[in-house]
């Protein structure tokens, strides 16, 4: 008699299929448990569906929640803390083996992990080396000044879309703020209390947006979104656009999608000249075990979580996706067997480099804000207004910060009396 339990995840498309593969591997590896893995088609819908299901008492045993949903989960009281789960089921985990940068994002103030880091990423800068050569750009764009120069040359060489960007705030606002050591919100981006307030309308981010705006007006940077018919990644892989910033998770997909022989490369996100680069934020998602399931399922869940954390599985996962290994031993093992020197995987080590560039600071530890899904949406809309409808940058950001703060206040009020631990 096998115990069945459910696992919901947000990844879709190619990455989603890799998750299915992982589930199959687990099921094949033993006969006591059967994991049923279901894609909810996106990180935000996974969070929504998890909440809805929890309210309906139909929650899965494990759910994949992205970085932005961390605080929503933490305060929900709807989960079994990772450490407790493993201890209860007799697994001993070396919690310190997780990369500090990664663990910090998901851990409590006391440093305890509530969820399992699973697919971790960070934002990277991708560029088309062939195009660079054609346009006579012979440097790797480390700074935004260089990006601008490259863009101008590309444009001059007849490339209509030197750089593509969309309104995803993750690279543009969150990662930018981290590597430039800019706060997103007070209280250490929320880590020190529910009464944090957004401040991005007063940081370098504003200049950054202004810069993007200027570039966009000169048609050097071009908006590419799903709504417009093509998002940034397909814009890059179809060689419509020559530079993009996106997750390292897409590294595998991009490699597969670009035609054979096209030369391209990946780098850490550029910084403004003269900036002391800080570590970037860890992205991706972690796995939460939800409360209220039968005991037997927790056994299975623990077994699964243990299984995917084994070095072989971690390596496999990082190989087939672009995600970075989340444990030090995993990373070391891969590094030592020369993984990052091999052709299709070359460059992925920059992600680790970016993540561990400096020790984490108040501004780079992570983001611990309630209702952050909604706040991201507000900013995305603001960017849309700025780039599509010529809204005034400062005014729009001020307004959005105010709207975001309203979300934070409501969250604070909803969880009145609770404190961050």
């Amino acid at each position, binding site marked *: 008699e096998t115990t069945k339990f459910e696992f919901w995840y947000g990844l879709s498309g190619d990455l989603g299929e890799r998750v299915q593969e992982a589930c199959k591997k687990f099921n094949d590896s033993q006969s006591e448990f059967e994991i049923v893995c279901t894609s909810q088609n996106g990180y935000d819908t996974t969070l929504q569906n998890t909440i809805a299901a929890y309210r309906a008492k139909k929650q899965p045993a494990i759910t994949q929640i992205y970085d932005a949903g961390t605080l929503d989960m933490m305060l929900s009281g709807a989960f079994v803390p990772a450490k407790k789960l493993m201890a209860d089921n007799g697994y001993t985990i070396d919690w310190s083996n997780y990369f500090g940068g990664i663990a910090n994002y998901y851990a409590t103030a006391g440093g305890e992990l509530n969820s399992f880091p699973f697919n971790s990423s960070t934002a990277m800068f991708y560029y088309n080396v062939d195009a660079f050569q054609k346009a006579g750009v012979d440097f790797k764009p480390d700074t935004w000044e260089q990006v601008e120069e490259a863009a101008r040359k590309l444009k001059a060489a007849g490339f209509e879309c030197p750089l593509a960007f969309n309104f995803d705030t993750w690279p543009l606002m969150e990662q930018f703020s981290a590597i430039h050591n800019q706060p997103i919100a007070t209280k250490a981006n929320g880590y020190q209390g529910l009464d944090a307030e957004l401040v991005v309308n007063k940081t370098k981010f504003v200049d950054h947006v202004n810069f993007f705006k200027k570039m966009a007006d000169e048609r050097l940077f071009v908006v590419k979104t799903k709504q*417009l018919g093509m998002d940034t990644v397909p814009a890059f892989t179809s060689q419509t656009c020559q530079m993009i910033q996106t997750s390292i998770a897409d590294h595998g997909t991009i490699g597969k999608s670009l035609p054979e022989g096209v030369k391209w490369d990946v780098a850490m996100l550029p910084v403004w000249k003269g900036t002391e680069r800080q570590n970037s934020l860890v992205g991706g998602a972690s796995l939460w075990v939800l409360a209220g399931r039968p005991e037997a399922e927790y056994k299975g869940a623990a077994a699964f979580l243990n299984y995917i954390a084994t070095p072989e599985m971690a390596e496999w996962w990082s190989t087939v996706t672009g995600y970075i290994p989340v444990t030090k031993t995993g990373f070391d093992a891969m590094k030592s067997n020369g993984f990052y020197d091999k052709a299709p995987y070359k460059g992925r080590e920059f992600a680790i480099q970016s993540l561990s560039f400096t020790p984490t600071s108040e501004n780079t530890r992570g983001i611990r804000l309630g209702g952050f899904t909604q706040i991201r*949406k507000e900013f995305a809309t603001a960017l849309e207004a700025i780039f599509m409808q010529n809204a005034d940058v400062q005014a729009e950001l001020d307004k959005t910060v105010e709207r975001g703060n309203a979300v934070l206040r409501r969250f604070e009020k909803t969880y009145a009396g609770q404190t961050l631990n």
Partner: protein
Amino acid sequence: MDKRAAFRSWWLPSLFALPQIILILLFFYWPAVAVLRWAFTLEPPFGGTAEFVGLANFKEVFADPLYWNSVGVSLAFALCGTLATIFIGLVLALAVDRQLPGSAPFRFLYILPYAIAGPAAGMAFRFILSPERGLMASVNAAFPDFWNPAKYGSHALILVIVVFAWKWAGYTFIFLLAGLQSVPRSLIEAAAMDGCGPIRRAVDIQIPMLAPTLFFLLVIMMTEGFVGADTYGIVARTTDGGPNHGTDVMVYRIVEEAFRGLNYSGASAQSLVLIGLIMIFTFIQFRFIERQVHYK
């Protein structure tokens, strides 16, 4: 309008109505109570004890310019969508009603879009009216950004209205054609004897005679546009409420607010306002306007 009721039992009709009544109580009135409850409390996303907050949710909703934006968008959507469907339906009905040779198949064809789900239609129109492929690409090649619903809120609104109108024009057409056919033929003939040509007859006789049907459709379509099953689907699958809230109709906002924003309370407050609006609307329909347009 009441029938001379024939049977005199009280338990039998109660028994007959019971299944539906139970369903309605469970899935209609109970949720309505919940909406009411949530609108005055702060409901934590994962459930649990909700705190009574009085009118705070309403204050928040009303203070939000984006809420008023969505009211405006909904109004524009419902109004333009309604007028467009009725206009198209009317023109087509007037044409088909003339019963010129060969007009019969059109009558059948025009109703077909009604069968299509709003979201499916929306998806198809995303292609058909996409700025860089399909029909508009050629136009855009000549005049860049002539048509770009991803960029301009107004274009996006037009796009969803087009989908709405496409889906419902055949529906209004059916009603209007039936309405036209119930205009006594002798009335048309009388007008012909009085010296009118077909167009003048349409304007002077047929359209005024359609007033009850037109009014009925106005109400039905406005309701459909405001809260119809398709409105949400069309917006969700065509523009996602964007760009920049350009197509953020009230139902879309409510669902987004609740399920994406995890703000059940705010969503409930908005639902209540919408419910109120529809009730007022229906009231106006029954009390005031219907009386004026019925000729007996």
